[in-house]
């Protein structure tokens, strides 16, 4: 199908759409429970509490170093489930395609959805495809829903951070935002850097097995700064972060210096911020470091009994400053 593109007929419900489903979507997501015959997926759920989330994905460019919109959609949804301690089980996949999208691109996105779903041990069980006129979308938009089950005894909540809890992160921050910025090409820089886009449910499972994890949050848009502020507000605790302890790649630090960005506000797609009971921090850190997605994990601070919503950063000089909620998108600056 090289050279072919998505046309309005692909979304029309007729034969072209059947062809697309039969020739591309089902084979790509083959082995999943996706079943064309029924109008809804019929699922068995293991015992536990149901976790249910939805998310929409728009990214420019569609393909970036270390991932693409398909992988992003699966990881983003799986990670939202993992952040409440759920084992992700099923996803839906809603595709909004722009007329003129090369079918090869669609095939790549679908392959990457399938690969990410396999890695995350989830099944894509229902889907939908619509086509919009050229110029009305950026290639592909994806909407997902995700279902998972929280096993009995697991209690992870953004409201459960307790003064004294250790704050842990599973590795370098800012990789995703910078990798996408680079591939968008707007500010013409080059660096060997991949997005950190990854499904975190396996890592979370190992962490839960190692000690009492009170709260988890994935620092996506708004970066680590937004995650810290949300955790602090929702749990009504203060947080104290040791800024030099936050893992940061040289490359990300360098481009942030050049463009005048603050890496604490740059997006991640494979990171989690965890609040862990202090006695268990060492064990959880060890479990994280043993996992591929946590090799560079670090303790970056602790929760305190100060004013709720207050996040302070202590710098190298030992002086501290308050962290603010990000206000909108960060733009490169000259000043």
């Amino acid at each position, binding site marked *: 199908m090289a050279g072919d593109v998505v046309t309005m007929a692909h979304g029309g419900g007729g034969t072209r759409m059947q062809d697309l489903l039969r020739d591309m979507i089902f084979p790509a997501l083959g082995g999943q429970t996706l079943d064309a015959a029924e109008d809804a997926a019929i699922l068995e759920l293991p015992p536990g509490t149901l976790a249910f989330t939805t998310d929409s994905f728009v990214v420019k460019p569609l393909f970036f170093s270390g991932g693409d919109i398909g992988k992003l959609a699966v990881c983003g949804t799986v990670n939202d489930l993992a952040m409440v301690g759920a084992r992700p089980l099923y996803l839906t996949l809603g595709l909004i395609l722009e007329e003129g999208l090369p079918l090869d691109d669609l095939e790549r996105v679908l392959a990457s959805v399938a690969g990410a779903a396999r890695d995350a041990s989830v099944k894509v069980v229902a889907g939908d495809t619509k086509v919009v006129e050229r110029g009305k979308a950026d290639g592909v938009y994806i909407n997902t829903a995700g279902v998972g089950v929280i096993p009995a005894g697991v209690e992870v909540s953004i409201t459960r951070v307790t003064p004294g809890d250790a704050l842990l992160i599973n590795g370098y921050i800012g990789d995703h935002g910078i990798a996408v910025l680079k591939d968008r090409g707007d500010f013409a820089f*080059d*660096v060997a850097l991949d997005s950190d886009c990854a499904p975190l449910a396996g890592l979370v499972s190992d962490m839960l097995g190692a000690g009492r994890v009170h709260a988890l949050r994935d620092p996506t848009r708004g970066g680590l700064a937004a995650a810290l502020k949300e955790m602090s507000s929702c749990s009504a605790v203060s947080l104290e972060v040791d800024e030099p302890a936050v893992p940061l790649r040289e490359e990300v630090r*360098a481009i942030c210096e050049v463009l005048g960005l603050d890496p604490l506000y740059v997006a991640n797609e494979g990171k989690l911020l965890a609040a862990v009971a202090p006695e268990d921090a060492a064990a959880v850190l060890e479990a994280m470091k043993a996992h591929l997605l946590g090799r560079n994990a670090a303790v970056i601070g602790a929760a305190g009994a100060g004013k709720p919503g207050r996040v302070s950063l202590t710098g190298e000089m030992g002086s501290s400053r308050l962290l603010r909620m990000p206000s909108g998108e960060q733009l490169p600056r*000259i000043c």
Partner: protein
Amino acid sequence: MCLAIPAIVIELDEPNLAVIEIGGVRKQVSLMLVDDVVVGDYVLVHAGFAIDKVDEAEAQKTMDLLQELARLEQEAGFDEIH
């Protein structure tokens, strides 16, 4: 009022352009505002332009001073402990 970052010139391109590198990041900048740049020079980069060369001898003087200050601080800390 103005961010400018020191970066090493790793390649000269025509006309009057250079590729600089900092911390593994590469970027093309204009050399229009500086004379006699050669590969290996450090330049200050602002808004896509090299605005001047870093005077490495002067930089070394300040770096030596900072090392000396750090040494003094450590000695003072040592005195306080004992």
